[in-house]
């Protein structure tokens, strides 16, 4: 199905690097991906969890949420890539024949992420997440210059070490579950595990959970394992950064969430993992304040903002109340949309100005008014300003904090969010106004505005949440909290 579509598309990309061929093949693949993915999402949400190939692939509401994010962002980013990479070739930053490798790795990357959210097995999830690291390493180092190679090296080394801890964690869980479920692959099945959850040895599960959260956490970018993230995001081609930030981090978080919903049911109780997640969340949020305010590189700024948002998500999910998890699930979707849009628009900006340094970009409104408008929308969206949907989701998490008797945490979170808002405002206003530096080719077509589509969705969801989405999110909450 869609995993097959992605794999076939990846192989197909290698045949030729001709512009028309790549465009045609990508469009066909995207249509097939949307149709098959959309069909699965719809079936999951209307008829409940269901499997395929006698349960080897399985989707429930949580997988459907992630699947939605992957499909939407993949379509958006690849459509954008078609033009972006063509311009890069045109400006002689890349040889034409490297294009086919670009699309090959992008589709392998998408295929591994689809695998992660389609399997009911914690072991295969691990294989998939490690697969995403490998698929993206060469994309991060795609420009092959010194900085790109350095970023790719740090990325592959840090993430591989991190992920190997998650493997150890998975093995510990297997050791705990095998006596109850047998020495077979079912012992890592997240459909079977909850049934025996309270019988699992708590020593093994505790160690397993710690290793796993730290391991996948390195991939999510929790502080202090976030060091690879700004390097990778800033050096990769912009469409790749968009995919990394908007989808990959969420996929790693998805792996943690599967463990979280399982560990809540064991004798460790719901609080144990929740507290770990909240600590990571708050740490990530707190440290990012400084990095965001002091930042000079626009793409690193966005990367740090992703760490911040993963922190917010960890806080929301870790809190584990109905409202907070609902908010975090919504936020996961909205952050993906907003961040993909921002990386895309900033990518175009960097391509046009030829610099990533914030102090050297000035007067965008004068030169490219449409880009400016989208940047303002993006600024408001990413900082969670009303009436954007991100405001609603962040508010749910904050309300959750206050309601469960964590007023201090709530206060700190609001403080950090406000400071980050101030930092973003400072950087963006500088870039938007003032005198343009350097001679730029002014003017752009109205079609640029089409790029803002995801942001408009975020805006719409801030004003009105359709009944169907609300129900879907409630299903997600049910999956994560597991009937507690």
């Amino acid at each position, binding site marked *: 199905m869609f995993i097959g579509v992605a794999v076939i598309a990846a192989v197909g990309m290698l045949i030729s690097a001709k512009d028309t061929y790549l465009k045609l093949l990508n469009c066909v693949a995207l249509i097939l991906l949307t149709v098959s993915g959309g069909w699965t999402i719809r079936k999951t949400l209307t008829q409940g969890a269901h499997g395929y190939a006698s349960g080897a692939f399985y989707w429930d509401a949580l997988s459907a949420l992630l699947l939605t994010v992957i499909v939407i962002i993949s379509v958006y980013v690849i459509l954008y890539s078609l033009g972006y990479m063509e311009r890069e070739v045109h400006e002689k930053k890349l040889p034409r024949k490297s294009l086919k490798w670009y699309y090959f790795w992008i589709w392998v990357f998408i295929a591994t992420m689809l695998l992660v959210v389609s399997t009911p*097995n914690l*072991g*295969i999830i*691990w*294989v998939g997440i*490690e*697969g995403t*690291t*490998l698929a993206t*390493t*060469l994309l991060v*180092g795609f420009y*092959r*210059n*010194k*900085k790109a*190679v*350095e*970023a*790719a*090296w*740090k990325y*592959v*080394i840090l993430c*591989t*070490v991190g992920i*190997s801890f998650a*493997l*150890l964690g*998975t*093995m*510990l869980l*297997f*050791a705990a579950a*095998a006596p109850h479920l047998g*020495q*077979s*692959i079912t*012992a*890592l099945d997240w459909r079977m595990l909850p049934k025996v959850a309270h019988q699992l*040895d708590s*020593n*093994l599960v505790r*160690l397993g959970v710690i290793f796993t959260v730290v391991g996948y956490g390195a991939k999510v970018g929790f502080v202090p394992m976030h060091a690879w993230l*700004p*390097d990778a995001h*800033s*050096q990769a081609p912009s469409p790749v950064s968009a995919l990394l930030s908007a989808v990959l981090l969420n996929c790693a978080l998805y792996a943690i969430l599967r463990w979280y919903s399982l560990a809540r049911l064991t004798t460790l109780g719901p609080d144990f993992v929740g507290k770990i997640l909240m600590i990571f969340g708050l740490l990530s949020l707190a440290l990012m304040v400084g*990095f965001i305010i*002091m*930042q*000079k*590189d626009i793409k*690193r700024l966005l990367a740090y903002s992703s760490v911040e948002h993963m922190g917010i998500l960890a806080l929301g999910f870790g809190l584990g109340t109905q409202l907070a998890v609902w908010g975090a699930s919504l936020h996961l979707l909205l952050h993906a949309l907003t961040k993909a849009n921002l990386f895309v628009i900033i990518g175009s900006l960097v391509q046009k100005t030829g610099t990533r340094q914030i102090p050297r970009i000035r007067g965008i409104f004068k030169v490219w008014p449409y880009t400016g408008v989208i940047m303002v929308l993006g600024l408001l969206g990413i900082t969670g300003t009303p009436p954007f949907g991100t405001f609603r989701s962040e508010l749910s998490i904050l309300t959750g904090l206050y309601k469960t008797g964590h007023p201090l945490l709530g206060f700190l979170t609001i403080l950090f969010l406000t400071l980050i808002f101030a930092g973003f405002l400072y950087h963006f206003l500088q870039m938007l106004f003032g005198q343009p530096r350097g001679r730029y080719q002014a003017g752009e077509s109205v079609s640029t505005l089409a790029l803002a589509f995801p942001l408009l969705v975020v805006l719409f969801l801030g004003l009105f949440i359709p009944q169907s989405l609300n129900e879907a999110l409630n299903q997600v909450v049910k999956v994560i909290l597991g009937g507690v």
Partner: protein
Amino acid sequence: MVGIPENELNLLVFVLLTCGLCVVYSSRVEKALFWWTLQTFAVSFLVLVQGLYSRELEVIIVGALLLIGKVGIIPVLLGRVLRDSKTEWVGEIYLKRTSSLVVAGALTLIAYEVTKPLMALPLPGFRNGLAVGIALIFYGLLLMMVRKVAIVQVLGILLIDNGIFLAGFFLTQGMPLLVEMGSMFDILVGIVIIVILSRQMLENYNSLNVDHMRSLKG
């Protein structure tokens, strides 16, 4: 569970530990690679013998795959990059070889201490194996911190991988075949990609010294 007799098992575990220490003590990358290969050979031997004793086809398949993939392909790939880069010295920073050996010894003791709470579960004969697995993970981390040649850092990852494999083997007597194959495939592809990256590193910096890579900050 039917398995290797206790004494032979301890001998094998001793070989594994010694190889790990030798990797830490090596002053030349080539030697370190050799000791790692020997260690991985011992790991596959252990798995194969265990599979033969207990007559489990899955375990034998895993052992054979280990032998082909990690003892066969990885050392050849890494060895080639080494020859092309003309790197010999492992690049000691913070700790010289002798002091790192002392630290590794201390880490081994810690590994025994850490695995104590898990001892109630697996068979008593597996105690050494599990502790040595954890110790190898520590050695890997140590190596990555105190050496600055890229290939030695990769050896660190490979040591960690061996350690995790061992710990997993003694904890669970073998993960499901599908997961084992998946993780083995991942590590193989990973090494291929790392080799490609180190070639790009050679093109850019003309050396495999990670000291050059300090430009990305803040």
